[in-house]
């Protein structure tokens, strides 16, 4: 299967007063057409930065991102504008991600005006109504303003705006984490239906392991800017390898009585991603940590086909 998008050693560092912040560090991933890659991790692990770097909302520090075989970091203005039509983003916060001074119709039409895909205003209006129908927004909201709508409907506007340019790839940055469970399910269903109809590829960023299992075919677990485990979804949940992945899975509360008796709760908290020490970044919290963990970079090991893990336990 052809990969729509893949990266090679992608890095994004930020200069801060206290040192270099390693937000994304040496990430290699691939997303085939029409498939979903879930990116999981706790706050501050760099997953949102990764999502923004991969569609060049922010420029990478190092490494390459190939979209349909071309490195997007070498694109000039014109190529970039073309790439923008193919790669879109859905944001986390349904409140700050849409302009409060624009009406629903204006918000959805904006990308078409900017990219000049629908120059005729009648055709644009038609397209906006069609998109509203696709994402399940009633026509009566055509002229409504965002503050009149609830979070779920606002998120639908965000989805419609992302679809306006007929993209092939959408980065979904925690699109449901600000929503209530029943609304969350509605949006997840919508995203999955759209993927089937339009053969969309998603990069689904979330901290919620139940949601990511539901929607993705492949999952990447991130910790402090690094990818520590990558695998097909079912394999990852049945056979997690990295101690951090295990701890994450153990920590999810399961809505069943006595679903698990006494889980292993990892101690401590996420360390700072500023100038990290060499070696495994999870080592300070890891129950299996050995002195070797802190000596040099941890190599990625392909334990079974398509299941990669970065941990010395599997050398």
């Amino acid at each position, binding site marked *: 299967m052809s990969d729509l998008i893949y990266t090679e050693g992608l890095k994004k560092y930020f200069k801060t007063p206290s040192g270099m912040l390693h937000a994304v560090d040496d990430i290699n991933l691939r997303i085939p057409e029409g498939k979903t890659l879930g990116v999981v991790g*706790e*706050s501050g692990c760099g997953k949102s930065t990764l999502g923004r770097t991969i569609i060049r909302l922010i420029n990478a520090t190092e490494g390459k991102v190939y979209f349909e075989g071309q490195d997007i970091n070498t694109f000039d203005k014109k190529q970039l504008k073309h790439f923008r039509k193919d790669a879109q983003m859905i944001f986390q916060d349904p409140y700050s991600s849409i302009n409060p001074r624009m009406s629903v119709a204006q918000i959805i039409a904006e990308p078409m005006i900017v990219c000049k895909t629908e120059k005729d205003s009648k055709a644009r209006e038609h397209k906006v109504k069609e998109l509203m129908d696709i994402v399940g927004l009633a026509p009566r909201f055509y002229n409504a303003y965002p503050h009149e709508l*609830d*979070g*779920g409907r606002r998120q639908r506007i965000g989805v419609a705006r992302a679809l306006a340019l007929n993209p092939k790839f959408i980065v979904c940055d925690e699109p449901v984490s600000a929503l*209530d*469970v*029943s*609304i*969350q*399910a*509605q949006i*997840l*269903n919508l995203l*999955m239906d759209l993927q089937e109809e339009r053969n969309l590829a998603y990069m689904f960023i979330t*901290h919620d*392991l*139940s*949601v990511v*299992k*539901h929607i993705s075919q492949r999952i990447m677990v991130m910790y402090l800017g690094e990818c520590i485990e990558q695998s097909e979804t079912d394999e990852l*949940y049945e056979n997690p390898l990295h101690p951090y992945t295990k*701890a*994450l899975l*153990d*920590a*999810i*509360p*399961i*809505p*069943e*009585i006595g*679903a698990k008796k006494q*889980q292993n*709760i*990892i*101690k401590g*908290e*996420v360390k700072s991603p500023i100038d990290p020490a060499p070696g495994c970044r999870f080592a300070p919290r890891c129950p299996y940590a050995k002195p070797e963990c802190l000596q040099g970079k941890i190599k990625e090991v392909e334990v079974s086909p398509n299941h990669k893990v970065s941990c010395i336990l599997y050398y």
Partner: protein
Amino acid sequence: MDDEKLLDIKGLYTQYDTDDDVVYSVNNLTLSLSKGRTLGLVGETGAGKTTTCLSILRLLPDKIGKITAGEIYFDGKNLIELPEEEMRQIRGNDIAMIFQDPLSSLNPVYTVGMQIGEALKYHGIYKNEKEIDKRVEEMLELVGLPKERKNDYPHQFSGGMKQRVVIAMALACEPKLLLADEPTTALDVTIQAQVLRLMNDLKEHLNTSMILVTHDLGIVAETCEDVAVMYAGSIIEKGSAEDIFNGDKHHPYTVGLFASIPNLKVKTRRLKPIDGLMPDPANLPKGCTFSPRCPHCMDICKTEEPPCVMMGGEHMIKCHLFTSK
């Protein structure tokens, strides 16, 4: 019922008077909690969970929020009739509350030690500075923080540690009842697991009763003995955790809530969410408030408020579907 009821709320109504309309936030809520038990109060945004907690503490926003009817018995006293002075003694001392956002519940210009000591000083349990200081150190160690950190300021703590400090503050006076309003929503899963375990341990250790407000059914299953499901200001189903998670009869809303969460164990292609939205609390539907979204809606549901049907034991469902039985 042999064990004593610590908290007994009967027919509580709370409303907010805003500029344009009256928001009916809590409607005819009846709820009780025995000593040493944990009740999970489950519901979505706007269901009135937080308002219920604020009503118990009588901390509703001035002039806007008010309790219009009902009784709240705590330890035999009706809190609604208590003068403000006595209420102030109960807050913090007998009933403590933990808020969702640890960031905004700590004052950035005081050390955490001073903030934990504040409540102790106010309620006059410990007389001299030395005793208070000792108690503060004790509390910090209890929540798993080194006692030397009492001289640190909130910004020097991470989110999970701040929530620990907040818990230490709440528990410093050994309250009989702890109201925890989404205490872990702002935290990461691994930290959430740590905090939940801590709260569970402390509750057993101190024999505190707790109302845990949450939208996460997983957390409820792990920590609560009793569960109450809230919708549009009233309890639509309550019972033991066993009844709610393993029982076979449920309110249609509870069914919908369970179907909305992706299950880690069962592979489903599509989730089955509840159609529609929460009703506007300023404009609640007549009869059953869930009727416009209910797949089993009958004619009677649109006109009459359903009665509370007891399903055996403590299990109660407020739905017309079960009245014929």
